[in-house]
């Protein structure tokens, strides 16, 4: 269910790092908890973000959830498809519905994140 090559946060974000670039999204568990997602608010490319701080938010009809940065760095790119099709976050949260790409400033931060197995156990326990 949760890809092995991703790292996960307790706030239900994932990051996939290739070289010095991290692709960030929210987990399948997060999208299920939120329900039908209707809007995504993302930072502008070039913005600097800090691990653990809000980088944007996702909204369902009656809730708003902050998305917390799993790693620090500079926003390189945001997913342009989400503005018109926020529902992708419900259908493909680990793939097509990535949120932002970040150039990592502090790769050491990855060590503080969970593995797929740990995250699986974590969301299992949370329920």
């Amino acid at each position, binding site marked *: 269910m949760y890809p092995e090559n991703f790292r996960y946060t307790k706030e239900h974000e994932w990051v996939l790092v290739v070289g010095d670039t991290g692709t960030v999204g929210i987990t399948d568990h997060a999208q299920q908890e939120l329900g039908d997602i*209707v809007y995504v608010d993302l930072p502008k490319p070039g913005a600097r973000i800090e691990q653990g701080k809000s980088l944007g938010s996702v909204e369902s009809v009656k809730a708003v959830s902050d998305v917390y940065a799993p790693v620090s760095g500079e926003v390189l790119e945001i997913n342009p498809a989400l503005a018109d099709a926020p529902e992708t976050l419900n259908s493909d949260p680990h793939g097509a519905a990535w949120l932002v790409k970040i150039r990592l400033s502090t790769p050491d931060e990855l060590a503080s994140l969970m593995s797929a197995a740990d995250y699986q156990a974590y969301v299992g326990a949370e329920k």
Partner: protein
Amino acid sequence: MITKVRNHLSQNEALLFERSSPGKKAFQLPALDVPPVDAAEALGAGNVRAAIEGFPEVSEVEAIRHFTRLSTWNYAIDHGMYPLGSCTMKYNPRINELVARIDGLAWAHPYQPESLAQGSMEVMARVEAALAEITGMDAVTLQPAAGAHGELTGILLIRALLEKRGNPRKKILIPDSAHGTNPATAAIAGYMVQNIKSSDTGVLDVSALAQLVDQDVAALMVTNPNTLGVFEHNIIQAAEILHKKGAMLYMDGANMNALVGIARPGDFGVDVMHLNLHKTFSTPHGGGGPGAGPVAVKKPLEPFLPAPRLKHSARKWTWDYKRKHSIGRVKAFYGNFGVLVRALAYILAHGGEGLRNATVDAVLNAVYIRKQLEPYFDLPYSSPNMHEVVFSDHRQAALGVHTGDIAKRLIDYGFHPYTVSFPLIVHGALMIEPTETEGKLELDQFIEAMISIAKEVETDPHTVKNAPYGTRTSRVDEVTAARKPVLRWKPA
């Protein structure tokens, strides 16, 4: 057998724009008794608009049918009970509407000379005095337009007083059971919000409060009785803790319907509070407003009230604009006067004793519902309740049915839903406030409906989950509405 309900009217009706046809009219102006002027010349050719594209063109008959048909698609207090917790949907006496439309009051211009506005000013003075007596406070401003606006005014007053004392401070404390307007207001007034967790019995945790209050805390905003309908019995203690550290106690008066004639915030340590005249004082909600949100304060805050203030001298009323400590205006003119007239009519109709009797009945109705629904719904807090009662969907959720589903099913039984999913401290809340203007028959039918639904959840949860069935409009697709907003009509 559903005792109350039969099918609702279900006529179709197009939008005004779809009914329009060029040249149709619902108006006739008197003949112009002065020479016409050329618009392009008077206003400048570039300033004159073309015809308003798409604006309605319907006849008078169509106009009245249109709005009458629309009206039949609404539920209303005049149809029956509206058990919306926290909203105090009580009967709206029609005499209030009549008196608000008396020409000399309805056509009074806010800038007409004071000598020709004495009646309006007398009405306002009487409302101020009545509200001061009811709340036990020293002074009242009628300027705020609604509850949240009153909250903002109240917090700005606190800020102004603290500033004058040398330090406006940084934080407002707000219990986790509070209305969303409280934190939103604190933020607009430039304060940080710190939440306080409620105690296990659903009230303010005084020891937690004592630890949190320091030189940075400007005020605590508390609703009393709180949103669980429970009286904050430690309120005097809380006030002492705050006052000792130079902080203030703000009370959200949304639930004042539980206290009128029984207890007065001014007597239990509140420094400033607002009232919602469209809740406690019976002015109509009108599908979402207008309201009025007077703010009542203790003496030390009086100099800061919004200008102008009513002043009585030489046997007449004047407006006093020279208020050097005033926070300024929060609204043009003097307040929602038409709403104040209605509220005063309500106060006059009841009188002191009548207002107290209304409170007693409001609490009696809520306790009566609680006693009879307790066997069927989970009651997360067992503290005695006042004017409203909050259950949770704990038992029903185990069968896959949630508070929102039960609420929608209630519609099929002929009732407006209760308040869903609030307060936030109760997971799956069912918040029920009957108000005093429900009789025993209507209450019994409501209780019967709730019990019947509780049984349906056990035998046929599917039916409950897809309700309502009897309405002209079935469950609406709110997701598409939010994803692809269509906020105005456009020609096809």
